């Protein structure tokens, strides 16, 4: 009976803490990632999640030829560097943040509208034996009319 009670309390605790961490990601995204969009208008979409070092996320989006875009990626300060690559539908790499000194933003425009895939990866810290670090990672897009 006592074990059962303890289990229920623990499960409720983990669920509640999971919700809290997700809520923190929203604040993190607004506080840290949004300002990085600068003069670009944020599209209003929300993409943030908790990742552990070594893990990755993917994002699929259509980008339009009339627009200029800024992609901004932010990782919690506790995490190792977060890198991203942008691929076309044939999985050809169009951009790698690693080749641009681990840049956290990328400005681009398109001659014709395209569906692109973005892979975001939290690097491993390389430390042996410790608990892998987790934290919020957010991806935001800003746009403006092509000049």
């Amino acid at each position, binding site marked *: *009976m006592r074990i059962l009670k303890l289990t229920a309390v623990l499960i409720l605790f983990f669920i509640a803490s999971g919700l809290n961490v997700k809520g923190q990601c929203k604040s993190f995204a607004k506080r840290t990632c949004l300002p990085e969009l600068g003069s670009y208008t944020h599209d209003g979409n929300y993409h943030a999640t908790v990742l552990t070092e070594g893990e*990755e996320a993917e994002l699929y989006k259509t980008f339009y030829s009339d627009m200029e875009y800024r992609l901004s990626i932010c990782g919690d300060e506790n995490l190792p560097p977060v890198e991203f690559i942008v691929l076309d539908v044939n999985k050809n*790499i169009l951009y790698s943040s690693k080749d641009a000194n681990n840049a956290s933003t990328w*400005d681009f425009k398109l*001659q014709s509208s395209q569906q692109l895939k973005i892979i975001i990866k939290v690097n491993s810290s390389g430390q042996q034996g410790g608990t892998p670090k987790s934290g919020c990672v957010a991806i935001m897009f800003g746009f403006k009319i092509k000049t």
Partner: protein
Amino acid sequence: MTRLLKISNSILALAILFTLMIASCRSGGKDAKKEADSVNVQGANAAVYEDIKQAEKIFYTLPSPLESAMLIKSAGAFFDNNLLNPIENTSHYSTNRSMGLNLGIYTCDLSFASLYDQTQLIIDYMNAAKKMADGLGILDAINEEDIKNLEENIHNTDVIMDIVSQTYLNSNSYLEDNNQPAIAALVLAGGWLEGLYISTQLVDMKDFNGNKLVGRIIDQKLSVDILIDLLETSKGHPAVDELIAQVKVVKTVFDKITLKTTPIRPEYDQAANVTVLKSEVQSDLTPEVFKELSATVADIRSNLIK
């Protein structure tokens, strides 16, 4: 006493079962989807990506209502308030399905009105979107301060766009963070379908060939699969299943359009500090297929705003 203990145990067991069910729902959908993915690496940096195999989280992203409205305006289309979902309809929406879909629809209408400086409509549609968000229990997605801020900056398009963007972010982040991905997907789908509806209705058939707006509509072929993938992460939810069937009808029409794209060549423009993704695209949308697409979208949309 023994009976009391049994009842207490049963309640506890039910509580655990319930929490486990919630936990399993949370790990479903987008979070749970993993896929093997080999990246076709060009060049010498292949080793950098050789360990890219699995994704913990997959985001399917549609053009937001603000982006859709911007695409319509940048194509040179005119504003027509008759195309918006009347604000009087807000009283018809009482289910999570209808409020979710119409939160997306009203946010798109609000974005459309914002970009065309329709001052009174901006306030009216912000209030309509607020009603939907409040009905869904989205706390503070749009608060009185936002409405006041909107009224004070009613002639400042940049500020209005920021407010619209923020309120949309508040809505979809709340739904995502509170484990309502199905409702979040309905909001996104509603906004996308409204953008497609408005743009198809604004095309003047006498000016079909070379019409920039028609080009933007063809581009939506690229997003229809993303929308289906997004909705399928919440498959099993009755409202989502119904919408998947409707969007698949739209896809059937889009499938009649062929898009031929040349490989993308990234070129860095040093002066502007921007990468230009160069490629040419050709499509073969006929007026007949366009009319079919327009009628299909209008039919679905009339069902969504009922």
